[in-house]
């Protein structure tokens, strides 16, 4: 059998370093996800309002995020701000800012979509039962919005975790960068390491994202 280059992972603390790298990725994405969910719920609800200015601003925001590659955003925030504003941002902080900025935009759009998909007669029916505005939201609208929200937002979360591999471009040593370092350090002794290391990185991402999509699938089936 060919040498898959897995041996290099058993050398020294290589495996542990990879796991630490994974934690760096997960930490960035999970903080950004938490921020995005909270802000997304708020901004998404605001977006359903009738105020023309708020709608224009939020739409512009969403367009910017959609059009701009995440990498460009990372470069603007990390390299750009340092020169122009003299703010010395830590690379991890810059990553969290960019991912929150992106996640919030997408989350708001998901929330907005879920809210406007609730038909008018649901509100009417609740009012006809004698429910107050607050009761209508607590008992009828929010539970229904959440179940429409979950599949799409889980999809967003996994995309955010995957995309953290970009942060190595601004010098954050996350799982992919650690992998590269290991490969470089062992170029002579195990030239096949690239395959083994990236295979393990793939498996690590899989292990990190799989439970989330599994949960989403379960919830979807339970509620359909």
């Amino acid at each position, binding site marked *: 059998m060919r040498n898959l280059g897995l041996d290099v992972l058993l050398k020294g603390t290589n495996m542990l370093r990879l796991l630490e790298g994974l934690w760096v990725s997960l930490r960035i994405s999970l903080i950004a996800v938490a921020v995005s969910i909270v802000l997304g719920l708020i901004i998404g609800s605001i977006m359903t309002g009738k105020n023309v200015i708020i709608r224009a601003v939020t739409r512009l925001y969403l367009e910017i995020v959609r059009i701009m590659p995440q990498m460009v955003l990372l470069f603007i925030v990390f390299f750009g701000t340092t020169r122009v504003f003299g703010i010395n941002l830590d690379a991890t902080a810059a990553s969290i800012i960019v991912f929150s900025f992106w996640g919030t935009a997408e989350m708001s759009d998901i929330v907005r979509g879920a809210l406007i998909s609730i038909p008018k*007669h*649901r509100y*009417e029916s609740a009012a*006809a*039962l004698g*429910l107050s505005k607050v009761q209508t939201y607590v008992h009828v609208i929010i*539970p*229904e919005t959440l*179940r429409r929200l979950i599949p799409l937002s889980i999809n967003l979360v996994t995309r955010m975790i995957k995309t953290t591999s970009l942060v190595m471009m601004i010098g954050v040593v996350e799982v992919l960068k650690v992998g590269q370092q290991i490969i470089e350090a062992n170029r002579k002794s195990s030239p096949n390491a690239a395959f083994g290391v990236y295979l393990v990185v793939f498996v690590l991402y899989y292990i990190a994202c799989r439970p989330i999509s599994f949960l989403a699938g379960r919830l979807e089936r339970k509620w359909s």
Partner: protein
Amino acid sequence: MSFIQIEHLSKTYKGKDDSVHALNDINLTIEKGEIYGIIGLSGAGKSTLVRCINLLERPCEGKILIDGKNMPELSEKELREERRKIAMIFQQFNLLMQRNVLDNVCFPMEIAGIKRKEARLRAKEYLKTVEIAEKAKAYPVQLSGGQKQRVAIARALASNPEIILCDEATSALDPQTTGRILKLLKQINEDYGITVVIITHEMRVIEEICGRVAVLDKGNLVEEGPVSEVFKNPKSKAAKRLLLTKELSEEGEENGLN
């Protein structure tokens, strides 16, 4: 004084450049314990009219007196109290998907602050009345349209209403199921003495259970009276047109489908 009294009711939706007169100076009275039908083609304003009765739509002008209380003058809180006496069932059933049948029926009682144990006991009774007691543990997605409407009717009964408003309640159902739901409404009307107001575009619904009928056309009340009279001798264009479509569809059923 009639039980439900609508006086000079008007509703206009204001757009940017033009406004739509959904209802023009409607006057009608509904007596306690009767089954009253309101018929019209889509866009005639019948949905708006029924929503004015429990003030889901706020009228621009006019009075809506229910048992002597003028609805538009009530405060938010009084209105909520009053709405509990006016149940409403919809074409879309509007059950809570995350709750099973029994909990759906318990829902208005929970909101009204009735103890869980008592609410469940009463809910089971109502489910028996609408003949769906065996589905108490099922979720709405597992039910057919007719069964969902039965649950909605049981839920309407749970708030101990004096009036039930039916907004195209049978329009999503097949003819046989429609017949059975109408029979159930009739039975509830007789057993509990609940006043029933039915909005529909189907002549047959009116014919089967209503005592009196009002015909709406483009926001105007064009004809009103006992069903037999209006149907035998329709005076307005709208009523004639409705009768004609009914005859045509019946002929179609007899000749075409069988």
